[in-house]
């Protein structure tokens, strides 16, 4: 079978039937050991979930090198035994029939397109290709894509591998699709990129404002924190274009039109100023830039805010009144406000109403973005972002370069300059500037917007190597696939949503030729003859170097050890191992809450609580811009995309877990009954959703829980079911996050089921 390609202009990819028949995704259910009653596990391994950024503690039950089930870990304080369905069933990804047990090489003559290859030979071929491409086309012609579901140790190693071993500027990661708007906004406003508060601060809040976060489905454990705050009198305000399960019983629902979040927050700030619901003392002492912001929101009268956001004026007034007058509060947001071509502005405008209230840096006064991936926090801190070095340092900063180069034992001048973001890497692959690519923990064929373009880009590469444990939709485009490790097959740390570093413990050995990802990377480096700095004996040794490389930076891990993490149910960074005289070291658990009055940090050096030389937080003027592609006569409906509770991200793992597939087998297009009736669509009809970039045909779910001008598609599926065939590759100019949450589409009923319905299983 030839390499799957899509002809430019033809938006539908091939079905890859033979590859799917060989490599899945197939659904695994519990059988044998896993259903036998009375089986006594060999061991219970305390670790964390492999999926989202909440990083719930759990215990894996292990028997004969197989994870046979999950037992709650009641003592872990964040979730106290609670788990979402993904956490309960995650164990079925291990010992899975689809698991890659060997390396594979593309083989046009093989039925499934690939044939097994010895591990050493595969690594030799990878090294030879890297050598050839970098020799013929320059170091930057070979790019690296990494991921934020990897342990922090691995993400550190990936950065070092790209910057020190390959010397390529072009490394980026899939947090580009996830955390970067929040990260950029937090850096601009606070000088540090971490949830400001531990989740326990939600409990005492008088108002909990949830903006663009489908908490119940994407961060289910946070639900109980919000419900618990409400039990003690908190008002819960939810801003979302859909009545998600968390919005169903909230006290105030703001049905914001997708892409208009800056307008909403500006309107709230306008009313706070008008009614003097401000903490003027805090604004004066602890912030700069309030006046220009106040001036800029003057235009955001309730009437104009209502017109732009699609929220009733009285609802906006009510939200401002509750938010403005609260004594304590917690504002949390997620991709709903961040996945925009102005995602950073949205984040900054949300932060503006927090700073104006003065409710931050104290008990029950909090602000946070909800991280998406397992290591959405740690994975964005230590050097796998295109412009970053470990410790949250900048690749463009000479002092930072010198510090890290010294830790790595290299000349700072030999470090590459900042590279380009993940989508730009695809554009450069498409244009031929980038010839080779190594990808790990990333499934861009499903997860990047306008993915027909991504398919074309991957098809044009001279050489593509993917490290994965399953044959993902993206790995199907690779020349060599190397069998990496599942989370439960390796150890390390990740940093969860609160900024708490937790321990991932190994439960089982990788099967067959598969091995821990850090070994594979070091094997490639060694085969290249460039193993200097990449000879770690294991994750803890990598962590020890990471501690040194982060020392003195904003993201300071120097005081963190595996032992300390295990003894304290995690350690919150920043956690330095040295502070100036008179400044106490953080307690055993590290720094739980940021920005406490009188707190010290290495940037402000005691002048204030925020991470700027003057110690003050920044208000930022946030001009409102509409979405990159607004609706028009041709494409009159807004498409917004998101997740469902039983699936995770590109579905490479969860679409192989039978009970999770059964919960929500295939993507459905949610649309309001009024829109449905106008289009002649009834519940369960096949509908084609079409944008300027592509189309997909799925069944309709007619529900009055979505704005009538908007339709929703979950994005967890590949091929012809992929929502990202439609989405637009418009990106935020600062964070480079793609605009997944708004594009223009048209929707029509179709009489015939799509071709895939007859030949593919739901999850395929």
């Amino acid at each position, binding site marked *: 079978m030839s390499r799957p390609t899509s002809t430019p202009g033809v938006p539908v990819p091939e079905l890859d039937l033979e590859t799917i028949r060989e490599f899945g995704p197939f659904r695994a259910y519990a059988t044998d050991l896993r259903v036998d009653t009375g089986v006594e596990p060999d061991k219970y391994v305390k670790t964390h979930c492999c999926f989202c950024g909440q990083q719930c503690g759990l215990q894996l039950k292990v028997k004969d090198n197989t994870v046979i089930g999950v037992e709650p870990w009641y003592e872990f304080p964040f979730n106290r035994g609670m788990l979402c369905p993904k956490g*309960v069933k995650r164990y079925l990804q291990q010992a899975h029939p689809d698991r890659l047990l060997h390396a594979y090489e593309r083989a046009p003559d093989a039925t499934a397109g690939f044939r097994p290859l010895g591990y050493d030979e595969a690594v030799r071929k990878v090294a030879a290709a890297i050598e050839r491409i970098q020799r013929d086309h320059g170091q930057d012609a070979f790019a690296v894509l990494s991921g934020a579901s990897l342990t922090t140790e691995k993400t550190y190693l990936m950065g070092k591998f790209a910057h020190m071993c390959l010397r390529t500027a072009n490394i980026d990661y899939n947090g580009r699709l996830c955390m970067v708007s929040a990260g950029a906004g937090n850096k601009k406003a606070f000088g540090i990129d971490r949830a400001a508060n531990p989740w326990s601060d939600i409990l005492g809040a008088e108002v909990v404002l949830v903006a663009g976060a489908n908490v119940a489905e994407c961060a289910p454990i946070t639900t109980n924190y919000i419900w618990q705050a409400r039990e003690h009198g908190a008002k819960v305000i939810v801003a979302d274009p859909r009545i998600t399960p968390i919005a169903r*019983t909230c006290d105030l629902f703001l049905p914001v039109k997708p892409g208009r979040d800056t307008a909403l927050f500006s309107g709230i700030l306008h009313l706070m100023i008008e009614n003097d619901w401000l903490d003027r003392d805090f604004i004066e002492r602890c912030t700069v830039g309030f006046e220009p912001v106040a001036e800029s929101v003057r235009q955001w009268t309730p009437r104009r805010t209502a017109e732009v956001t699609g929220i009733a004026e009285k609802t906006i007034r009510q939200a401002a009144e509750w938010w403005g007058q609260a004594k304590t509060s917690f504002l949390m947001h997620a991709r709903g406000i961040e996945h925009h071509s102005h995602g950073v502005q949205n984040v900054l405008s949300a932060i503006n109403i927090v700073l104006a209230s003065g409710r931050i840096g104290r008990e029950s006064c909090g602000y946070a973005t909800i991280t998406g991936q397992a290591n959405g926090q740690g994975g964005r801190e230590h050097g796998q972002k295109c412009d970053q070095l470990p410790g949250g340092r900048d690749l463009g900063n000479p002092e930072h370069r010198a510090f890290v180069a010294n830790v790595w034992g290299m000349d700072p001048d030999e470090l590459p300059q900042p590279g380009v973001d993940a989508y730009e890497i695809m554009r450069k692959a498409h244009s031929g500037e980038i010839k080779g690519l190594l990808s790990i923990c990333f499934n861009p064929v499903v997860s990047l917007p306008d993915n027909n373009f991504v398919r074309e880009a991957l098809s044009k590469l001279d050489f593509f190597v993917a490290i994965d444990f399953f044959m993902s939709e993206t790995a199907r485009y690779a020349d060599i696939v190397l069998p990496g490790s599942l989370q439960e097959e390796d150890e390390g740390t990740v940093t969860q949503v609160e900024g708490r570093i937790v321990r991932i413990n190994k439960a089982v050995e990788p099967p067959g030729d598969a091995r821990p990802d850090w070994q594979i990377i070091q094997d490639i480096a060694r085969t290249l003859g460039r193993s200097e700095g990449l000879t770690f004996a294991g994750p803890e040794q990598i962590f020890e170097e990471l501690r040194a490389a982060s020392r003195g930076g904003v993201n300071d891990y120097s005081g963190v050890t595996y032992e300390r993490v295990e003894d304290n149910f995690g350690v919150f960074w920043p956690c330095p191992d040295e502070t100036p005289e008179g400044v106490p070291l953080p307690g055993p658990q590290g720094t739980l809450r940021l920005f406490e009055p009188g707190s010290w940090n290495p940037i402000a050096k005691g002048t204030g609580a925020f991470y700027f030389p003057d110690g003050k937080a920044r208000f930022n003027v946030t001009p409102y811009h509409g979405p990159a592609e607004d609706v028009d006569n041709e494409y009159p409906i807004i498409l917004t995309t998101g997740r469902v509770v039983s699936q995770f991200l590109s579905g490479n793992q969860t679409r192989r877990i039978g009970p999770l597939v059964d919960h929500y087998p295939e993507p459905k297009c949610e649309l309001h009954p009024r829109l449905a009736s106008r289009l002649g669509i009834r519940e369960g009809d096949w509908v084609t959703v079409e944008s300027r970039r592509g189309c997909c045909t799925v069944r309709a779910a007619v529900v009055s829980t979505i704005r009538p001008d908007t339709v929703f598609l979950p994005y967890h599926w590949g091929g012809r079911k992929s929502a990202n065939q439609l989405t637009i590759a418009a990106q935020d100019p600062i964070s480079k996050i793609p605009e997944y949450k708004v594009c223009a589409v048209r929707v029509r009923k179709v009489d015939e089921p799509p071709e895939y319905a007859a030949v593919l299983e739901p999850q395929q």
Partner: protein
Amino acid sequence: MPVPEKLEFFVDPGRCIGCQSCIQACTECDTHKGQSMIQLDFIDRAGSTQTVPVVCMHCDSPTCAEVCPADAIKRTEDGVVQTARKPRCIACNNCVLACPFGVPKMSTKMNLMMKCDMCYDRTSVGLKPMCASVCPSQALAFGTREEMARLRPNAKPINTFQFGAQTIRTKVNVMVPKDGPDEHVDVTAAMYEPAIGHDILDDVFGEEQS
């Protein structure tokens, strides 16, 4: 060992987010691996995301046991109503039809009625049942009355239900608003009311806002 008297089961459908964690966890129970004894349904998905989890309520006088011609369903001393005993169950379906809460399920494969036994292997040694352990919204909760009163000051547990003429007391509690009327929930009356939340939610996306 009996289930410790102080530990009780509480259901609060108002908190349910429909994630099905309880169902997935129920299939992990050692006594019925792979099968869930919990039902979780949307009330009216077209109008609301409201879902309701139904676990066995463990009645004081279990209707399922009363109608069983084979005397296969036993209630333990501590009030837990067990799955039908395999040697006795004749798979007649009487219990399935009679249970006012619609809990027992017939496993045709095994020719056996199966139902929630409140994770007896866990609760009898002081552990929480699987579903109430994992439930991320704590719509299903297991603990003491004192804990519940402290954690949920605006709600109260009730365990008496009216089904037409039949009054049923259960071991499992349902949380209801504290300041609401103190009458028993009449399930048959609710059958003729509009679905929960439907009329409220209809207006949220009014024409003038869209």
